[in-house]
């Protein structure tokens, strides 16, 4: 019997690697909450519930060449693009070595040039235009890299989404607009954010290909993003892919989600959690055996412990370094 992933051209090793990345993201995320609740770190923003979508998307790209414009929930995505557990924890602890910002930005504000992860800020949706610009620059320089940029469904209502999408459409740039629709923008449900049925309904307005897929299933996401990536590389322009997920945690460690959604709703969603369902799929396909699973958990626990210890012990940047890097220090002024 040919499995679903084989039909998509993915071998067993690759899907296992996908699962491993999802699981690593989940375990780091869980650790972050523990650190927060025990007073070690002041802030957490989570990827839980979106790992499957992120990993499915990442694996459909050329991770040695393409660019990602990530947003604050994209822990699994940046791990897939080469950020290490230690590097993530250095960001969480805001230490000097944090590759994203040297401890300057809040946790979750990923960026790393060597892995082609664009730096991003807190104001949502600005990164969408940057990802478009990346491909404009690349095209000008004869580089066939494409970019994938992520954002929430709430953020898809910002003007910057529209302007950047239209720009990419007109210029036929190989950008994948990847909406991680987790049903909430903090407390505001999609019914108060959107009047369209699907975010991907907006694709036609930019002459794009649009598709909505199950964000709990990394294979569906992989398939859609792969199709979009191929289109992009063939010069057929941008695509808008929407992955339907669910935000399993409160918006952040500062949020109390019980004031606006029921516990029942959350526990229902947990049943469809992609980390669980993909594990089930892999077990079914006999790829995730008990031994492999135990070894994986063991390896990941070790990675997370090591990353936590390392980051906890690492130094903060010097106070005076606050003054550095406002402008290019090799240049004038």
């Amino acid at each position: 019997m040919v499995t679903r992933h084989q039909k998509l051209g993915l071998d067993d090793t690759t899907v296992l690697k996908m699962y491993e990345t999802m699981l690593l993201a989940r375990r780091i995320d869980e650790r972050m909450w523990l650190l927060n609740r025990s007073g070690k770190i002041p802030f957490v923003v989570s990827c839980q519930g979106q790992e499957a979508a992120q990993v499915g998307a990442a694996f459909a790209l050329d991770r040695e060449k393409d660019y990602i414009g990530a947003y604050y929930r994209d822990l699994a995505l940046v791990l897939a693009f080469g950020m290490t557990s230690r590097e993530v924890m250095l960001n969480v602890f805001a230490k000097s070595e944090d590759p994203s910002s040297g401890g300057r930005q809040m946790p979750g504000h990923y960026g790393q040039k060597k892995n082609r992860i664009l730096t991003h800020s807190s104001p949502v949706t600005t990164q969408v235009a940057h990802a478009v610009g990346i491909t404009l620059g690349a095209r000008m320089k004869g580089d066939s890299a494409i970019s994938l940029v992520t954002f929430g469904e709430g953020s898809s209502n910002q003007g910057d989404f529209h302007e950047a999408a239209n720009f990419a459409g007109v210029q036929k740039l190989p950008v994948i607009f990847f909406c991680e629709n987790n049903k909430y923008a903090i407390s505001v449900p999609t019914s108060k954010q959107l009047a369209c049925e699907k975010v991907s309904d907006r694709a036609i307005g930019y002459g794009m290909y649009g598709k909505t897929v199950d964000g709990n299933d990394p294979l569906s996401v992989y398939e859609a993003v792969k199709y979009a990536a191929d289109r992009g590389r063939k010069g057929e322009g941008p695509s808008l892919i929407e992955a339907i997920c669910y935000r399993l945690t409160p918006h952040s460690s500062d949020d109390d989600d019980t004031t606006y959604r029921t516990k029942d709703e959350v526990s229902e969603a947990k049943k469809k959690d992609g980390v669980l369902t993909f594990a089930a799929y892999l077990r079914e396909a006999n790829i995730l055996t008990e031994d492999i699973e135990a070894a994986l958990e063991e390896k990941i626990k070790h990675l997370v412990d090591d990353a936590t210890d390392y980051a906890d012990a690492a130094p903060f940047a010097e106070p005076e370094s606050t003054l550095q890097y406002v402008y290019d220090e090799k240049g004038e002024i």
Partner: protein
Amino acid sequence: MAVMSYIDAINLALHEEMERDENVFVLGEDVGVKGGVFLATKGLYDKFGENRVIDTPLAESAIVGVGIGAAMYGTRPVAEIQFVDFILPAVNQIVSEAAKTRYRSNNDWSVPMTIRAPYGGGVHGALYHSQSLEGLFSGTPGLKIVMPSTPYDAKGLLKAAIRDNDPVLFLEHKRAYRLIKGEVPEEDYTLPIGKAEVKRQGEDVTVITYGLAVHFAIEAADKLEKEGITTHILDLRTVYPLDQQAIIDAASKTGKVLLVTEDNKEGSVIGEVAAIIGEHCLFELDAPIARLAGPDVPSMPYAPPMEKFFMINPDKIEKAIRELAEY
């Protein structure tokens, strides 16, 4: 009089104004069911319903722009921007539209709208949840910018802003929300927009500032008083347009002026305060005009040592006052 926190005073003002005038309504991100991420709009949704307490899509330019339209129609919107750092997508609607509507229509149309937003640092908010952006808006005729320091002022000024017939940007220090408490009358009152207030009388050095820094200055003044140095503290309250006379009076009173802001130094509103002094009471001065502000870096970093390095605090103010006193 009840003692309440700065945020409770704001919440009370909103409740009272919405009860008083059915034209007043609230819109913004998470302001409804959740009551706002800081809970400034708590209880409004239950009391006034979803028609007057609107959870909007995540789109600041629309929040302000739709608010402008509703204000043009004749209602009195109170728009919340979740953090002032996120007001920037709405700059065009605020500066080109809200502030210029009355003028460009030769008084035919107007925009009686209030835009509330938390600002300021010291809460581990990092670059994008710590900014002071009043300087960016403070060259915008047609707009007023109010930044209260106490719960009493917050209630009285917010009510005045809501009743004002022109757009008011009402900036609330997010660290003051729960840190600062004070007496607030339960009854209705307003305070005049455009008027600074002397928060402490003194003879040796004048401090002119606003927002949370007023409290830092008072703390510093308390300490210095024991050394025999008395500090005159002017709270600007409205940072645009500035209360020129109050600035001139306060600067002339002691002849030694320290201007304090939490914002970056270059281009902040205290530059304009210095210019007013330089224009109007230069010869009353016995020392150069001193400024204490954040460094000229994009905003305060997240890591505690850098955040602390950036933020002004009572110690830094104390030191600056002492230097001036000894000048």
